[in-house]
């Protein structure tokens, strides 16, 4: 089989960028949890060069800097969900990481890979978009920043150039008190690829009024995106007074408006409605819990 495949491993970011600059037909591999499945499906017949970046230590850090949390693309899902800084600042990301694959998959799979693979069902992408994450893209001669929502341009498609690597994922810290939630429906409890998932990030004031909200379902549209109509419908409202039934319906209608009727619509429409209700209910519970603690 695979007569034309070559392999190059590097532990240096500069070397990786230089290699991408001077070679074509390079496929980057990190944790391999998506790349290896694709290779298997193609009977390992990929021709070109596999560039292994999994050992570049400088891309494995999580740190707080000024108003941002910066995450290296080679941070694994296990590292994400065990990180206390993340759990404190962005528990919605921790919750999403916990639902990915299995222990073995979480030990190898990376946040950069989850983003770059750009599966419509990726579990980290909805929370990252809801948190207004940006990706840093570097080549040997350039560096640019892009909102994650713009970076992902379609199912399994991103705006990355052949000579670029994702070298950082940065999330702005939220100054106001905010609430968040992640929900997922899979075919089974573990190892499940999301049939549909959702992330909510909401800034809610002391009168329980939603000041700003991001509602991002995954697997509902070709690439995860905020549901603007749904967001508009709840912004400025008191969260405890929301008509969840109506909002669930609205979410389903917004999905169909974005994607058209598909073979999966009869399942996904009510499923998304249920998830919207479930995640808003979880947020409401938390808000009410906080209210009681203050009294």
């Amino acid at each position: 089989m695979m007569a034309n495949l070559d392999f190059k491993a590097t532990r240096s970011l500069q070397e990786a960028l230089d290699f991408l600059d001077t070679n074509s037909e390079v496929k980057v591999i990190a944790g391999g949890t998506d790349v290896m499945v694709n290779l298997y499906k193609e009977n390992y017949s990929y021709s070109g060069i596999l560039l292994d970046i999994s050992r570049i230590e400088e891309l494995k850090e999580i740190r707080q800097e000024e108003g941002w949390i910066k995450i290296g693309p080679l941070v694994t899902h296990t590292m994400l969900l065990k990180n206390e800084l993340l759990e404190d600042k962005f528990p919605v990301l921790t919750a999403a990481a916990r639902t990915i694959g299995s222990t073995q998959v979480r030990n190898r799979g990376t946040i950069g890979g989850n983003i770059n693979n750009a599966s419509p069902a990726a579990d980290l992408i909805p929370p990252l978009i809801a948190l207004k994450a940006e990706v840093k893209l570097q080549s040997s001669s350039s560096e640019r920043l892009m909102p994650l929502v713009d970076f992902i341009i379609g199912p399994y498609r991103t705006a990355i150039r052949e000579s670029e690597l994702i070298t950082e994922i940065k999330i702005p810290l939220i100054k106001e008190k905010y609430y968040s939630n992640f929900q997922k429906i899979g075919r089974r409890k573990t190892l499940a690829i999301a049939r549909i998932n959702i992330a909510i990030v909401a800034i809610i004031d002391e009168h329980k009024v939603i000041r700003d909200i991001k509602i991002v379902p995954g697997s509902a549209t070709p690439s995860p995106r905020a549901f603007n109509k749904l967001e508009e419908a709840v912004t400025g409202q008191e969260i405890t007074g929301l008509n969840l039934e109506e909002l669930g319906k609205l979410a389903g209608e917004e999905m169909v408006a974005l994607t058209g009727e598909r073979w999966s619509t009869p399942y996904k429409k009510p499923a998304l409605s249920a998830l919207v209700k479930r995640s808003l209910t979880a947020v409401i519970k938390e808000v009410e819990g906080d209210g009681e603690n203050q009294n």
Partner: protein
Amino acid sequence: MEKIKINLNVNRLEYTLEVEPDERLLDTLRERLKLTGVKEGCSIGECGACTVILNGEAVNSCMVLTGQVDGSQVLTVEGLEVDSKLDPLQQAFIDHQAVQCGFCTPGMLMSAKALLDKNPHPNREEIKTAIEGNLCRCTGYEQIIEAIESVAGRKDCKE
């Protein structure tokens, strides 16, 4: 298609190997080192039959290229036994009749071993999470979980 020279410590023995660019850790262990306790099931990271411990973490060896792990330490089921003595986990699997056809057993053992190495007293939920990537299609999971619990010394505080 150049071969890649790598060093690997497998079951406490040092190896220097020349491997293919597309050679999976699974292939190296089974075909080159004849460690056939490492099983190939689904080949896509779903079943966990190929689980080994790589630098202390349970991984699916079907999803790792050997070229990626130069200088690493690998433990397979063959390495659990030390000086002709079974690992307590292996004995517990026998005692609790946690083996039927046996195909999932090596992977199950390695997932359990990785857990106990990090967390010697896991609760039942932590055990379930550790083996969630290991599919068993015959005994069911109860005996397996009980076997691991017995080694974890937590039998008495079962939830």
